């Protein structure tokens, strides 16, 4: 007997008049789009029509200068529910790429990955695992990595088991006016230089907006500005895979800075994140083996400046026994952890007369927001409110300017 193709099987089922609530995904489009992607020439615009289209394997694009454009994030839907091969929905390894107005649903791995590329625009793309937050969902929604000059705007990312909108090992990035919800990490900036993150809504994630540096990668990261965002009630139970860095994020984390330097957090509304509205930590608090860390890795968050945010309602019900015990001991059963939680790790090599140089400090100028140092280096033995220690200011970072074809 002839072996059959999955797409064929899908069609046969659909043809049998099987009852479906949702419109049956059209599997015949797979070959069309795959061929268009293979045959694309620089300058091409690949239009995705209105409809829900089924794919059984991942899509890829390797041609520079291509635009993929749908009819809207709720109208042109690429569904990978029946995917049997490939680690992402769409992987792009090409420069000068624009994707807009479509949705990628239910891939087995990452939804949209863009690797080693520059001049990238991702606009009004929805990535979603339609069954809601589940550990079995794919890792990343929108995932540019090792990219330069990137604009991510007005996207919607839902239910990724790692980060909804993630940018890693990149340079010169603007992430604005997106919505991330029900992901483990809503928006994550990792090992990236020069990122502006503004106008976004991060809500109902485990952690709202993360600015991380991880060891063993080609580049560290620095200089991220997080401003004018709504980071509200990111209290979803952590459904990340044990072992992944985000799996250690406590539910109820608003903005988290981990081992990154030169980070500015200002003019945000950071509200109702039940562990803490802002967490500043070292990789030493995130369960990473020091045996497995490259020696030149800078594990300490430095030159962090948090100011003029609207913060309220945080820290009332921290995730994890240690923080819960700490809250009750220091602030009572009805109290709350302060808005800013710092794990207390300081690089001993950088201390001058027992203190960090002025330009490397963690500075908090945020009205009546308090800071707690949880004394991580001494296994949390002597946590204390240390707001006065952080009463300082840092020079402000310049805005990120997109360049070349993305210049505004």
């Amino acid at each position, binding site marked *: 007997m002839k072996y059959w193709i999955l797409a064929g099987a899908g069609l046969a089922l659909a043809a049998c008049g099987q009852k479906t609530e949702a419109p049956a995904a059209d599997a015949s489009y797979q070959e069309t789009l795959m061929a268009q992607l293979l045959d694309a020439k620089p300058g091409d615009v690949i239009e995705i029509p209105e409809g829900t289209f089924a794919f059984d394997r991942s899509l890829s694009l390797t041609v520079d200068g291509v635009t993929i454009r749908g009819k809207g994030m709720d109208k042109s839907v690429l569904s990978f529910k029946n995917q049997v091969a490939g*680690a992402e929905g769409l992987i792009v390894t090409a420069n000068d790429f624009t994707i807009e107005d479509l949705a990628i649903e239910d891939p087995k791995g990452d939804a949209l990955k863009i*690797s080693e590329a520059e001049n990238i625009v991702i606009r009004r793309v929805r990535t979603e695992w339609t069954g809601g937050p589940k550990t079995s969902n794919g890792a990343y929604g929108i995932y540019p990595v090792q990219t330069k000059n990137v604009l991510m705007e007005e996207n919607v990312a839902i239910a990724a088991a790692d980060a909804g909108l993630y940018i890693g090992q990149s340079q010169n990035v603007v992430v604005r006016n997106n919505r991330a919800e029900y992901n483990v990490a809503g928006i994550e900036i990792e090992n990236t230089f020069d990122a502006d993150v503004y106008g976004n809504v991060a809500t109902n994630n485990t952690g709202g907006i993360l600015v991380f540096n991880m060891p063993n990668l080609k580049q560290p990261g620095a200089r991220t500005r997080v401003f004018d965002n709504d980071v509200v009630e990111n209290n979803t139970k952590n459904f990340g895979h044990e072992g992944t860095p985000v799996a250690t994020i406590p539910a109820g984390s608003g903005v988290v800075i981990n081992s990154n330097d030169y980070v500015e957090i200002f003019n945000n509304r950071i509200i109702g994140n039940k562990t803490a509205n802002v967490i500043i930590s070292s990789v030493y608090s995130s369960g990473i083996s020091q045996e497995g860390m490259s020696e030149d890795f800078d594990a300490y968050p430095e030159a962090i400046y948090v100011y003029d945010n609207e913060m309220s309602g945080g820290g009332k019900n921290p995730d994890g026994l240690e923080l819960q015990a700490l809250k009750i001991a220091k602030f009572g059963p009805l109290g709350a952890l302060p808005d800013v939680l710092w794990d207390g790790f300081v690089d001993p090599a950088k201390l001058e007369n027992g203190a960090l140089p002025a330009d490397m400090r963690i500075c908090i100028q945020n009205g009546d927001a308090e800071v707690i140092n949880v004394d991580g280096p001494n296994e949390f033995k002597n946590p204390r409110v240390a707001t006065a220690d952080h009463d300082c200011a840092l020079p402000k970072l310049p805005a990120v300017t997109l360049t070349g074809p993305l210049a505004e």
Partner: protein
Amino acid sequence: MRGWVVIAFLLIAACSGEQTAKPAYHATDNPERLSEWGMSGVSDGALRLAEGVTPYDLATPLFSDYALKLRTVWIPESQAATYDESEAFDFPVGTVFTKTFYYKQEGAAWTGAVLQAEGPVLSYNALPLEGVRLIETRVLVHRENGWAALPYVWNEDQTDAYLKRTGDVQRLTLVRTDGRAEEFAYLVPDANQCAACHATNATTRAIKPIGPKARHLNKPSTFVHGVNQLEDWMTAGLLTGDVGNAAAVPQNAVWTDETATIERRARAYLDANCAHCHNPNGAADTSGLNLEPDAQGPAMGFCKSPIAAGGGSGGRPFDIVPGAPDQSITVFRLQTTDPGAMMPELGRAVSHEEGVALIAEWIAQMDGNCG
């Protein structure tokens, strides 16, 4: 000009019922039929290599769902590849590689069931096709503007394979040596997916052969008795350059060779199955994990935390937890068949249980702890 002559010859041959293949380099066009490349042809119950086409194999190959593989190389007359100690040899424009994936089938008639079994191998430049199912042949051709990768899928009648640039998924059933059967989706990669592995440098994105490196080819020839495969290539005029002291030519272990150390067998396996992406410039350099034979410490996974693994962590803390394969992500990723978590990402749909056992054994005998 020459190409036209060859095609004309083939057409004539086809009309007269003969099946003699004659190699043809297609400099720009992508022939619809595999036979138009003339590297091999089916006749008298066998897939027969054309004259001048050289079969070869690798010490430790890539695992591809237990498919058996017939690899060939053809280099235009009076030209040769240039030796390199660590990279793929430098092959001249016009070189054509083929890799045919086939199985021993279960039963006399084709049912879609394939066996985990040593199948027939090439002898006297012919692969007997009785009880064999040809699935696909991948062509890798070196053109003026670089290498191109083209997937061909064999037809129902097993007489020729046809270009399928968008790839294919075939539903097969694997019958393991102990009789266990499992259905799986065999992936014929699309042309971009070919490049996903063959662009071993993700920055230049140049497609290159992966297998024909000194360390993979440096083994006794399977096809010419009593000589080393590299020597055979040199004798046949396929390879030139300064090989130097034969004893110093890099050599990967045969992963099943129990006389070799577990370390060398495991590293050879990871090299063949992972290092095309997991090298310092490869597509997987985003992970910081390097599985080339010379990588050490956290770079090769020792106590290394995952970066962007998602479900690929399998809930385990580090890539390699010395002494504890069941806690090592590396083992999980090789074991799982979840497309979102498994490694390699492409070209595998079933678990290579014997390969997983090898890597597990390697990790089990490691000393140290991750603190």
